[in-house]
């Protein structure tokens, strides 16, 4: 059981997160019966699981909570703020309980009691949970003999019940003499094989209580007449007169009846039981069901024709169905990703070696390995992807708690939360996003009063949107608050000596100052976002996962922060190109098309435009940008890449081909350059640099801009 316990904890943690999420949604729409049902269900699972895996306190606690929501579900109670607050507190407490198990710390214990009392208050006037009487296990030592009459409804089979199993179970309680009565079976042409026509008389000798006999029939209590009578103490079936009586009087088409049996039983009791011979015992035990199934054979044959639909043992064609999902430690996934990266690097060597060997066989193998490696890589990536959704509950909770404590009304809306990202990215992303949200609520959204004055709805909205954009995922946080005040930012920056008072900066550049270390616009420091950790930290954290952040704002209508993130961290599909003696990798996801170009078309062009497929496309001659001499060959190649919705050509010497690049960091010496996002080791051991085309084009463009500014 213990190894399941951990699994339960993991699962319950998720369950609690989902419960929390549902509760937060419920706050928005307290009448939503689907949500109430969901809340109830999560609690229910927690309770059930808790009890099964030894979290008794947790289970009991949840039980009361569940009862409250049961009332809500039944419409006897309304969801209100007080209840939601209490439930959310309870959820927090459950998290603690899940961690501590039944051995609570003193502090937890106090909290436990307090919450429990509060929850019970909600149930006060409701009726007490009826305690179902559990089978009292007072086993009496004395053997007794019972008469049991079992008459099921005709449609007993409809529920999948097999009455023979019940007879069998009865026989397992002791010694049973089972007498099926077949008088109601109609003629074959009128017989409906779907119906149960048989009824049974059983004489049972057992040490068990009457309750235990009732338990046998517990599933069919409401579908059958079940009479249980105690005939006598002791074992009547061992009495030869009684046994003989049953044997002689049993007819398949007629009941013996309780009265007759009772009479014989009583009669036997008054008379001293005769010493029975072992022969007669044997004869009777042939019919009486001893332990096991042997005694059922008669009935099995008799009733067999009525039960065509009895479950059949499966024949061949057994299909193995795999478990639909498994839980894996995240470290294992990290490890697998590392191995896959190494494999990709090694595979590149193999491919290169195969190419050079001129051994066809080897080449074929290498090609196959390449194909498999690629599939393995994609698969491994897929495993490590986690939907953005996993973070959202935390955000919801933050928004709720924070806006309440600041006296603001804020609502978090989300869109595209099914967008998936590498789990490592998600992990690193949570904190920066939390900080961004804190900022939105603290600085962005105004108080309800201010909002009313500005003619906006009292409730502010924060929209969190996630979507794919090429090779990256964008997460956009938009608030409809007061927006950024460019002038105020400027004053502040001047005061902080971040810029000189004379500097003329565009609005965007001013906004970007927010990300400068040592900048915080809040005029009065609050304990929310003014704890010295500024947006610069957000930016730095995001940079660690190759993410970027952009800000845009419209005074009075709100602020939009866009976080751009790479899909994965470690391996990318790239296009290997050569410029002079160096090799570079351009992320394949950015590549749009490749053209061949005449040398003369791309060198010394006045406006750096080239017509490709009837479209004018701006381009950069990379040799020039990299301060290398012009190429001597007559043809070069243009790789057209996507850049902020436009297409830009990058001129390289030659395109070598597709390449899976395992990204390695350039090391801290190069952390201040951003045109190159990393390096990768090629099959022959040389290093290729991986271009960040967006940043590169950014840089080239601003260089030109400056050039133009200088010239003019």
């Amino acid at each position: 059981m213990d190894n399941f316990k951990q699994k339960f904890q993991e699962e319950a943690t998720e369950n609690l997160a989902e419960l929390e999420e549902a509760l937060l949604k419920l706050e928005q729409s307290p009448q939503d019966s689907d949500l109430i049902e969901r809340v109830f269900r999560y609690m229910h699972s927690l309770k059930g699981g808790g009890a099964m895996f030894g979290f008794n306190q947790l289970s009991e606690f949840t039980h009361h909570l569940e009862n409250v929501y049961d009332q809500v579900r039944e419409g006897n109670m309304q969801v209100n703020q007080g209840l939601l607050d209490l439930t959310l507190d309870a959820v927090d407490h459950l998290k603690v309980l899940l961690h501590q198990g039944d051995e609570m710390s003193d502090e937890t214990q106090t909290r436990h009691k307090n919450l429990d009392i509060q929850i019970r208050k909600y149930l006060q006037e409701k009726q007490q949970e009826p305690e179902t009487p559990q089978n009292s296990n007072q086993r009496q030592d004395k053997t007794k003999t019972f008469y049991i009459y079992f008459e099921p409804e005709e449609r007993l089979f409809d529920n999948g019940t097999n009455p023979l199993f019940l007879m069998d179970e009865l026989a397992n309680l002791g010694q049973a003499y089972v007498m099926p009565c077949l008088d109601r079976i109609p003629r074959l042409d009128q017989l409906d094989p779907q119906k149960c026509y048989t009824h049974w008389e059983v004489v049972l000798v057992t040490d068990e209580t009457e309750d235990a006999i009732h338990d046998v029939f517990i599933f069919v209590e409401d579908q059958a007449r079940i009479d249980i009578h105690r005939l006598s103490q002791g074992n009547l079936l061992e009495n030869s007169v009684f046994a003989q009586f049953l044997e002689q009087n049993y007819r398949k088409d007629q009941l013996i009846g309780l009265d007759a049996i009772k009479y014989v039983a009583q009669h036997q009791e008054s008379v001293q039981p005769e010493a029975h011979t072992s022969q007669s015992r044997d004869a009777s035990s042939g019919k009486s069901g001893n332990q096991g199934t042997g005694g059922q054979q008669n009935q099995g044959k008799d009733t067999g024709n009525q039960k065509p639909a009895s479950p059949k043992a499966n024949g061949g064609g057994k299909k193995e169905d795999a478990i639909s999902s498994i839980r894996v430690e995240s470290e294992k996934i990290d490890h697998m990703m590392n191995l896959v990266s190494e494999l990709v690097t090694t595979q590149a060597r193999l491919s290169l070696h195969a190419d050079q060997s001129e051994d066809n066989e080897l080449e074929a193998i290498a090609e196959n390995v390449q194909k498999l490696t690629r599939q393995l890589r994609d698969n491994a990536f897929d495993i490590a992807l986690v939907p953005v959704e996993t973070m959202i509950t935390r955000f919801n909770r933050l928004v709720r708690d924070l806006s309440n404590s600041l006296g603001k009304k804020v609502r978090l809306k989300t869109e595209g939360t099914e967008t998936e990202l590498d789990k490592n990215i998600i992990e690193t992303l949570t904190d920066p996003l939390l900080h961004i949200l804190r900022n939105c609520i603290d600085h962005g959204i105004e108080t309800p009063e201010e909002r009313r004055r500005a003619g906006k709805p009292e409730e502010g909205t924060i929209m969190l949107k996630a979507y794919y954009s090429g090779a990256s995922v964008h997460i956009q946080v938009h608030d409809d608050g007061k927006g950024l005040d460019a002038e105020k930012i400027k004053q502040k920056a001047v005061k902080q000596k971040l810029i000189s008072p004379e500097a003329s900066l565009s609005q965007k550049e001013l906004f970007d100052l927010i990300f400068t270390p040592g900048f915080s616009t809040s005029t009065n420091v609050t304990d929310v976002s003014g704890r010295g950790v500024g947006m610069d930290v957000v930016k730095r954290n995001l940079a660690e996962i190759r993410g970027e952040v952009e800000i845009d704002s419209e005074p009075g209508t709100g602020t939009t922060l866009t976080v751009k993130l790479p899909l994965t961290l470690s391996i990318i599909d790239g296009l290997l190109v050569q410029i002079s003696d160096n090799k570079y990798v351009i992320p394949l996801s950015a590549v749009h098309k490749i053209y061949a170009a005449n040398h003369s078309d791309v060198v010394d062009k006045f406006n750096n435009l080239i017509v490709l497929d009837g479209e004018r496309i701006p381009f950069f001659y990379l040799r020039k940008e990299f301060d290398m001499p012009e190429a001597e060959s007559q043809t070069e190649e243009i790789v057209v890449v996507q850049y902020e919705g436009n297409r830009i050509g990058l001129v390289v010497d030659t395109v070598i081909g597709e390449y899976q690049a395992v990204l390695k960091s350039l090391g801290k010496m190069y952390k201040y350059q951003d045109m190159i996002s990393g390096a990768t080791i090629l099959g022959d051991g040389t290093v290729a640099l991986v271009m960040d085309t967006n940043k590169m084009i950014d840089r080239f463009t601003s260089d030109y801009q400056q050039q133009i500014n200088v010239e003019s």
Partner: protein
Amino acid sequence: MGKNILVVDDSESIREVVSFTLENEGYEVKLGNDGKDALKHLNGDPIDLVITDLHMPEMDGIELIKEIRNKDQYQRVPILFLTTESQASKKQEAKDAGATGWIVKPFVPAKLLAALKKVMR
């Protein structure tokens, strides 16, 4: 040949415990996350018993039981549902839908097997 048992529960830990117990007894276990998910197993494959939770997303236990009873092949398959003591009305609802019996949560493996023996051999 082992009997095939379909276990349907949205809680992974319950599924694991139940399937572990059953597999130890030599049964073949198929799993479903919820009613809807479980339907994929009701495609003609032999199923000798269904054990299902009642509260599940997508399709709850009651719905599943009705679905099963609507399929000719599975019309007579015994169905046990998992329940807690507090749900007397649910119990009736499930029985009306066609369930064979129930197992009260929390349960230990012995209790599970005892209930199972009532409806399947």
